[in-house]
């Protein structure tokens, strides 16, 4: 547990956890409909950590993952990222497209159509997550179209750390695990708001 974590008081942490809980609840419903099987979520984790510690807490900088995400703007700013191991991403694509993975071009993890199926899936899941938060807080949240890549976790999280590092030496993230034993699937959904945004989230719920 990080030192800075103690600085976030219990009430705020509970509020953030509830935000993540509601967001991920909607996201897991959306994924459940998409995959046509039950999807569950674990208890969300909310962490405020030093910049240099984040990657280690999420599996280490060299963990190779498929990262699909979107940048968020509007009343709050930040990133929403789905972090999947390759077989998990493969599973989603195959279930959504109802056919085996196509052969990927040299040097790329997926064929264009498979990649777009994956992005679209995360678009739907992430969209549900953000819509739930937007409805709860009354804040306007505008996601970009998703990006996707297979990379070292450190290289993917770099993006979010650059955003956080401009204002602060700490970064906050909400992590929700989604899993389905029927689909043989488990993956993490991360919401990483920038520093002003978590104040705005608290204000919108009357907690500041």
């Amino acid at each position, binding site marked *: 547990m990080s030192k800075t974590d103690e600085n976030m008081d219990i009430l705020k942490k509970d509020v953030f956890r509830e935000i993540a809980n509601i967001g991920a609840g909607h996201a897991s419903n959306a994924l459940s409909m998409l995959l046509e099987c039950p999807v569950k979520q674990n208890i969300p984790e909310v962490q405020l950590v030093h*910049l*240099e*510690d*984040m*990657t*280690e807490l999420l599996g*280490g*900088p*060299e963990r*190779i993952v498929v*990262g699909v*995400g979107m*940048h968020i*703007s509007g009343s709050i700013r930040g990133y929403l990222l789905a972090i999947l191991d390759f077989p998990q991403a493969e599973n989603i694509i195959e279930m959504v497209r109802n056919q085996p993975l196509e052969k990927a071009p040299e*040097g790329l993890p997926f064929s264009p159509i498979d990649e777009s199926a994956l992005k679209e899936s995360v678009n739907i899941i992430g969209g549900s997550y953000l819509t739930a938060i937007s409805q709860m807080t009354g804040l306007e949240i505008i996601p*970009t*179209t998703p*990006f996707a*890549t*297979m*990379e*070292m*976790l*450190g*290289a*993917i*999280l*770099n*993006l979010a*750390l*650059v955003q956080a*590092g*401009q*204002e602060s*030496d700490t970064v906050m993230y909400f992590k929700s695990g989604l899993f389905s034993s029927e689909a043989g699937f488990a993956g993490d959904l991360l919401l990483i708001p920038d520093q002003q945004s978590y104040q705005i989230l608290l204000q919108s719920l009357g907690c500041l």
Partner: protein
Amino acid sequence: MVNIAQMRIARPPDQLYALGLGSCIGVVLYDPQRKIAGMLHVLLPASEDALPAGQEHRTKFADPGLLDLREAVIRNGALPGNLRAKMAGGAEVLAVSNGTEDSIGRRNAVECLRMLDQMKIPIDGKDLGGKVGRSIRFDPENNVLHVKKIIGEERKL
């Protein structure tokens, strides 16, 4: 191991690692004669006015982090006139379609090169830019910077 926004010094047989660099840059300053090296894991180009009174996190930035790295290797026995540099990183791993500004990876690279030029430290090897992340390892015994990506062969600089 040099995590994001950190700086470390090493002598043989110890080595310096920075793993999973995306837009970040690992910069090594070393004295080949005295076999001492330091690595900085740069997150952002310049502190501009943003640096708060606490000096704790200067190492987040190329400027002033590289000044501190130079000072640290010299304090640990390197001679200013012997110093050389190698660096890798600064990729644009995810082209996020929100920005009009130059990629942060490129800005990091430009700022690191500017700082090294300003400090008059010659650059013996660099592997910058592209779209793929890197892991790097520097061995102060032979001054080789090993650069590894998720695809392709390891590169030696």
